[in-house]
């Protein structure tokens, strides 16, 4: 379903943040901000909650550690126990390196795959852009027109905070 957006475009991240602050003060819901690089401190203005990917990474890591321990313990303890000079058949200190590597392997790949799924990224996906310059040097504040009451007020905020261009776009 296509949405109609009101776009305020800036060339300065500081001005973008000023605009977001003004919009928040007047209770306007901002759809999203598109920028060529991450703007630090933007999260509160867009109600972005702390991502749970860290928790996911932790769970994947635990899974990796468990895989490592189970794999080696099963092979050495159950499937093919070996008597090497009467030493323990399941020498756990020897498991540490491989268990550690599997922990990192699972945590890293699991987290990145989850990141791609959550953000809906895949190879060859068509990007939906508000402005073609947004990956270069333009910062775009996008507001869903269906969710605003006073459009003139927003346009006023945009022009007062230094937006060089105020446009509309249907995507």
């Amino acid at each position, binding site marked *: 379903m296509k949405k109609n957006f009101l776009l305020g475009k800036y*060339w300065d991240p500081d001005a973008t943040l000023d605009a977001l602050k003004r919009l928040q003060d007047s209770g306007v819901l901002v759809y999203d901000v598109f920028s060529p*690089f991450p703007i630090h401190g*933007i999260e509160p203005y867009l109600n*972005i909650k702390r991502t749970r990917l860290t928790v996911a990474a932790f769970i994947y890591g635990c899974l990796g550690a468990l895989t490592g321990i189970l794999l080696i313990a099963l092979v050495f303890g159950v499937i093919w126990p070996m008597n090497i000079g009467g030493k323990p058949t399941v020498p756990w200190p020897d498991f540490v390196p491989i268990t550690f590597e599997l922990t*990192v392997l699972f945590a890293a790949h699991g987290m990145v795959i989850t990141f791609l799924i959550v953000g809906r990224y895949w190879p060859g996906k068509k990007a939906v852009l508000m402005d*073609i310059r947004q990956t270069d040097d333009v910062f775009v504040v996008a507001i869903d027109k269906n969710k605003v009451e006073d459009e003139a007020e927003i346009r006023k905020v945009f022009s007062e905070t230094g937006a060089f261009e105020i446009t509309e776009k249907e995507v």
Partner: protein
Amino acid sequence: MSHAESPIRQKWVVNTDQYGQITADVTRPIESKPNLLWLAATGFSATVLGVGTALIVWTIYEGIGVWGLNPTVGWAFDITNFVFWVGIGHAGTLISAVLLLFRQKWRNSINRASEAMTIFAVMCAGLFPLLHMGRPWLGLWFLPLPNTRGSLWVNFNSPLLWDVFAISTYLTVSLVFWYLGMIPDFATIRDRMAQKGRKIASMIYGGMAFGWEGSSRNWSRFEVVSLILSGLATPLVLSVHSIVSMDFATSVIPGWHTTIFPPYFVAGAIFSGFGMVQTLMIVTRKVYKLENYITMDHMESIAKIVIATGSLVGLAYMTEFFTAWYSGSLWERYIFINRMFGPFGWSYWIMFSCNVITPQLFWFKKIRTNMVLTFIISIFVNVGMWFERFVIIVTSLHRDFLPSSWASYAPTYVEVGILLGTFGLFMTCFFLFSKYLPVVNMFEVKTLVNHPKKPANLEERAEEPVTA
């Protein structure tokens, strides 16, 4: 505010006050046609790679008898090259992960190229254990897979198997880290190409950009993922070379059987890696005119790390000697005296002078800001670190407990050719990378620009937004 910083703070980006200028400078080599110099350099590297490939084929066809190994010196050039290349890789992860955790902003402009270096170096490294197997197609036996060979399992007690897990984890995690960091830059190139009407290029880079649009929600996640990945890569990089050192340290061969190996190898790896970063960066910044992003201050910072890690390596050499003397073990003492004054003494002195003495020249500001001298010293570091591994491996092996089995070792042309071939592979990959992928991390460098100026041509570039 987000990016405005104190004017007295050190600037890691100079002569640049527009974000668009960064995009233009970094994408210039991608947009322009390859020049003659690049074609010649890539062609040469590819030829060397071709020679190496031919010798690899010969090795596989004939068997590793074409190498100079013998029953006493069973590991020589191959494992030396393996440890050397793995070590080179470590600087890339250190720059991209460890320096991110320490918030060292100078990493922003050199992390992309160093990570690329890591991946190409680990690719070269991985070749050698595979080739040394003699039957590389049986490499699958390294994996703990259920099988019909009497249900034969791998030995989880063996550091060689730990290596398999460490190196494959390292390679794949580094690759993912590298690619993830490039996604926003691919999007930048995609849109730049679209604006210039280059549809095919835009389509290719668009495919690689995974549909990145720079939404703040995704940036927020992206930054957390990068941070956690560096948190994971940091212990990983330390573990990889520790495990590589355990290939030797867990044996009972005098000269190998020492507990200092893991930190000693990690310091050496970072040292050699930074030597290679210097070599590559000096050329890259000059050829692609990136002096505004890879500044003299960057080169100085790298030189300082080379001093620090070089001194650590020197300390490790001396500790080893002290321990050999202090241990009272006859064999241990002999092997270290033999290392210095035995038949392979020359390689020891090359190692010592290149690794311990030459890097100390970087204490002088005049030397570390002189790119010709820095380049020469970085080559010395690369040579010295290769010889370090040669010294550790060959001098410890060639005279073992039984004098009747003492032997010498000399590489054949096949071994030398395969080593050169890996340099060909490394350089070919690096040249291709520097031509077709963004050498400098554009979006991270953009965060370093203070008080940006309004782009002059904003309105001209405002086309009807396309969905590329």
